[in-house]
């Protein structure tokens, strides 16, 4: 009986792709961590750990900001529409479409340059002040997708009978939208979107930091912005480690050296790519499990 229960749990766990990939991600990162602990030199290891923690902390903050901002914007749209405030509605649409039309990397790059200037002037000091600013700047260029989803959900439920029925019952508009539609009936959709937002944030964070470190390093003080996986990858020793992969393609006997001599760059690149791969699988698995 007990074994049956265990088997059913294991089967359901293995069949839900999102949980499986979450575990694979955590275990693989732990294995990489142990390997680095054994074979990577201490200063490099410390940098990799800091870069990893910083990247994922900023990305988590991006998710929080995106959720709050998009929720507020969606409510803004809804209430402007409800109160027939045409000017407000048009202004909000215009603002959102404008953000949509700016390529994310351009917007974030200029935002980061601005934040680096503030850090250099001493207006922003410490990670506690810098991280939220970076996250806010990035979330501005990601919110459009989440706002679209939330608005779609509200529109969908407004067409159903329960919306009119609840209004007839005297339930307030804000409770219907916030609690009954967005929280009770859409939180799975929103959560799935937020997983994708987390992936986008990791990708954009690494890319912007890589570009800044490669292209603007003489203009922006390297200590102005926190160390992330992207900026670590742009360092000359990491770049040389990555270049060694090309050598291995035509000289396979060099492969073992990658895991011992070129560990910093290989670890950073692996952490970026593997995390993106896993986050995508988790998001897809979650959507599949809940039939979203």
């Amino acid at each position: 009986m007990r074994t049956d229960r265990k088997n059913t749990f294991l089967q359901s766990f293995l069949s839900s792709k999102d949980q499986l990939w979450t575990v694979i991600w955590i275990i693989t990162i732990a294995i990489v961590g142990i390997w680095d602990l054994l074979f990577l030199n201490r200063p490099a290891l410390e940098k990799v750990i800091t870069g990893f923690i910083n990247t994922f902390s900023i990305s988590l903050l991006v998710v929080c900001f995106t959720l709050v901002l998009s929720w507020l914007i969606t409510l803004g749209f809804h209430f402007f529409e409800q109160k027939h405030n045409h000017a407000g509605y048009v202004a909000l649409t215009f603002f959102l479409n404008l953000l949509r039309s700016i390529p994310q990397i351009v917007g974030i790059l200029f935002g980061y340059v601005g934040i680096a200037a503030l850090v250099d002037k001493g207006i922003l000091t410490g990670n506690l002040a810098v991280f939220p600013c970076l996250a806010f700047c990035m979330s501005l260029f990601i919110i459009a997708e989440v706002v679209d989803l939330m608005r779609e959900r509200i529109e969908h439920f407004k067409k159903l009978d329960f919306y009119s029925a609840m209004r007839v019952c005297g339930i307030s508009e804000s409770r219907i939208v916030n609690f009954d539609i967005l929280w009770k009936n859409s939180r799975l959709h929103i959560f799935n979107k937020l997983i994708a937002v987390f992936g986008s944030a990791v990708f954009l964070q690494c890319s912007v930091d890589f570009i800044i470190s490669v292209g603007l390093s003489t203009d922006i003080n390297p200590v102005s912005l926190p160390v992330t996986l992207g900026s670590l990858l742009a360092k000359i020793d990491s770049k040389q480690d990555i270049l060694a992969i090309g050598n291995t393609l035509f000289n396979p006997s060099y492969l073992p050296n990658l895991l011992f001599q070129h560990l910093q760059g290989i670890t950073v690149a692996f952490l970026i790519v593997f995390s993106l791969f896993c986050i995508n699988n988790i998001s897809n698995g979650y959507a599949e499990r809940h039939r979203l």
Partner: protein
Amino acid sequence: MKNKIIEHISGIIFVTLLLFGFLSFYNTSRAREQERQSSSIRQFIEVPISNINDPFQRALLKDVMNVFYPDQADKNNQIINELLSTKENEFNKKLQKSHLEEHLSISKLQDLLWMLVKFLFTYIIVMLLTWYGVQTIAVWRFISKKQALERKLQLAFKKEKLSFGKKTGSIFNSIFKSIVYFILFSPAYVIAYSIRTEFNTDSLFFMIILGVISNGLLIMYSNKFYAFLISESRKGYLDTALVKNLNSSYLYNSTSGIPYSSIFKFRKNFKGHVFQHIFQNARFQYLSTIKEQACFLITGLIIIEMALNIHGYLNYEMLRQMLYKNYDVVIVIILSIFYTVKITEMLTDFLVYRESLKYENRS
């Protein structure tokens, strides 16, 4: 449609005015700052000193100042020091920035225009390739899934076990798939640096390849298209299509199935098969995501050009000009990218509008 065009045009006007406003504010504040700095020595700035390090010329200047403005030796000394340091700074700046400082001119605009043409060419080719790639991968995945279901059913009746060869094949298939997925999810700079020692990664051809396969673009949007196919395949109209006796087998070798070659055609057509309707409806939904895809694609191309420092390309030029603080050039480049996105959005809106006319029987 009219409203959308008005919205796009007002967006273009707003951003253009905003950026030019920023540029004029920046230029004015910089000029004011320079003026403020040199206000105390403004009247002496034109004093001809050929070599500021020559002690004779310095002494001569001091004497002349004391002759013209007697009884303020201390003030004269201060003015001379300020004047000499300003002249030295100007000279050093000129020396350092002579090859870095650039301003908008006809020849610079011509250079930028050529870079924009190259960027647009890359963008259009990558867009067409991803348009084809996204649909092909999603259709292939969908049909493979359906085939696997059909095979599972057949195996369930036959109670046949997989042979060792087939098992090994499926393991190799999984490994190959994982490697491909890994490449598709890699940011462009990781792929490019991995093979930089063996291949020339600065060519246009390589940029196009990277634009298509890297940054997760292909896989993300093919997943989206696949999701549209799945959601369409669950809809009720398919039962009507089956009742009307449309082909429904997904096997390649079956007469009522789907020919293998039709998956890889640029203009996909599955006439007489139920999948034709699933595909058409999914493609209509996919059309509206093109705007988002175009923006993400441009982000990818910018990352490639900037991260790989590919000289002579628009986005690398933007990074370079940002570094040298030539903001007028930066603003022109940003505007050209913004216009590209806006034109794509307008075209997409037009395409969606035209398709919706067809679907709503209004054409």
